[in-house]
């Protein structure tokens, strides 16, 4: 398996058939790990960085933790490939743009990705569609066990797993749930989510996690505390307290829209579909908003002739790197916007 095989299809997490998928897009868990006896990356020399990549990548390749895994050496990967991996949520923006020996190991179904030499020596990630935190934890925990058998992770009796940044020390875990909350946005109640998250010491971010703003209708809720709370307790809080509460808010807002503001709701949904089916130039941000409204319309039964997998695929494939990869050439400005509009028209009118 190789990177170019990914371009034209959607990963597991975008299948859109996980539990609660009308609101929960994906569940993600990542673990930060470092090798004992090696400096953290901020203080590692070129030679030390290279040695880390060599040691870790050979363990990952010799003992595949997931079927059809492949390794991408990011140091000499073209920019478009690195951006493609960011758009698929397989690497961070930071990992795409930083310098020096680094890479990523991705499983064939894209549920597992292991970044090598990001902020920590290893950043293990499991990404699944819908609300599947228990499944994601079971999977990442066994991957961590398998790697631990081959690599000696830096661990301290008091501080737990040692990380370059003390904000990750302890469990080194970050649990993130990506939510689609268009009704709360439309009814102006999204602040409720921010408040609830703040009370629980959780962060709310945008589509691409750290450093991205929570704009549009997609929100990523993730933990900040990694010390003094076990993985199981943290996940249980997400599963039983935080996420059900937000889902409840969104359900309630959707019901209000359906019952009291039907015309306004239909107007928004039909305008989105109209523009997506007819426009000749589409910018990526506008696409995101319109697809979000359309997705809500389909989930609420206001649009019958488009399905969720098609919309999810459009979210992914209309992003700049994907679009250019599919067209097989570099596209800029209006040419790119025209290609995007055409791609969307073809997909939505062919349904």
């Amino acid at each position, binding site marked *: 398996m190789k990177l170019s095989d990914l371009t034209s299809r959607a990963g597991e997490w975008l299948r859109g058939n996980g539990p609660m998928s009308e609101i929960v897009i994906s569940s993600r868990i990542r673990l930060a790990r470092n090798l004992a006896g090696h400096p*953290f990356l901020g203080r590692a020399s070129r030679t030390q960085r290279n040695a880390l990549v060599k040691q870790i990548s050979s363990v990952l390749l010799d003992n595949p933790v997931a079927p059809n895994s492949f390794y991408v050496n990011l140091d000499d990967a073209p920019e478009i490939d690195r951006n493609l991996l960011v758009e698929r949520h397989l690497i961070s923006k930071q990992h795409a743009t930083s310098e020096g020996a680094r890479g990523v190991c991705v499983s064939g179904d894209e549920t597992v990705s292991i970044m090598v030499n990001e902020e920590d020596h290893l950043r293990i990630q499991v990404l699944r569609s819908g609300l599947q935190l228990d499944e994601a934890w079971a999977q990442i925990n066994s991957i961590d066990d398998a790697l631990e058998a081959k690599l000696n992770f830096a661990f301290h009796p008091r501080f737990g797993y040692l990380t370059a940044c003390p904000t990750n020390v302890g*469990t080194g875990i970050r649990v993130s749930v990506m939510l689609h909350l268009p009704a709360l946005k439309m009814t102006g109640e999204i602040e409720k989510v921010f408040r609830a998250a703040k009370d629980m010491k959780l962060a709310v971010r945008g589509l691409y996690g750290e450093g991205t703003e929570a704009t549009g209708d997609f929100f990523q809720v993730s933990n900040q505390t990694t010390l003094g709370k076990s993985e199981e307790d943290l996940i249980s809080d997400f599963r039983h307290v935080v996420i059900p509460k937000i889902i409840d808010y969104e359900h309630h807002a959707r019901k209000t829209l359906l019952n009291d503001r039907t015309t306004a709701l239909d107007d928004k949904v039909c305008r989105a579909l109209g523009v997506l089916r007819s426009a000749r130039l589409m910018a990526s941000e506008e696409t995101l908003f319109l697809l979000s409204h359309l997705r809500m319309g389909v989930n609420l039964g206001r649009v019958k002739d488009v399905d969720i997998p098609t919309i999810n695929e459009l979210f992914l494939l209309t992003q700049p790197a994907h679009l250019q990869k599919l067209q097989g050439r570099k596209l800029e400005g209006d040419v790119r916007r025209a290609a995007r509009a055409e791609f969307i028209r073809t997909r939505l009118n062919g349904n």
Partner: protein
Amino acid sequence: MKCDNCNKQATVHLTEIRSGKKIEKHLCEQCAAASEGVPMKQHTPINELLTNFVMAHSGLQKEMGTTCEHCGITWAEFRQHGLFGCEHDYDLFEKDLTPLLQRAHEAATHHTGKVPTRAGASTPGVPKKRKTIDMAKLKKELQRAIENEDYERAAQLRDAIKEAEQQ
């Protein structure tokens, strides 16, 4: 105004209430320091004052001299970038790190959760994985029992925790 004690210029003015009677004293710096114990300092240039203030509040002065023998990082360098240079820094800067950790992690100072098999088997003082998780659960239950004012249950849990800690 002249100093009450000598002929120098009075720059320190004290007002004292003693058994309901107001006593005013006007002294020069030297006499104030000698008779009233008022600490007098040479005038400090404003830039020095500011530098001291900033240093004291940013933690730059702490551990100024300590450099990690493994990675060469100092506390000041860590504070600049927020990243440690190696695993040994956690022990080296433990004292200064603790308040930062408490701020970042809801007052926690100790790890609870997964322990690598390797560490669980060989590091002294590290509880086994299963036990760590059970402790966290017990403590949480205790908290809940207290909140619900179920003191009988709370007492049982407290004993269970004590017992587990002694093992």
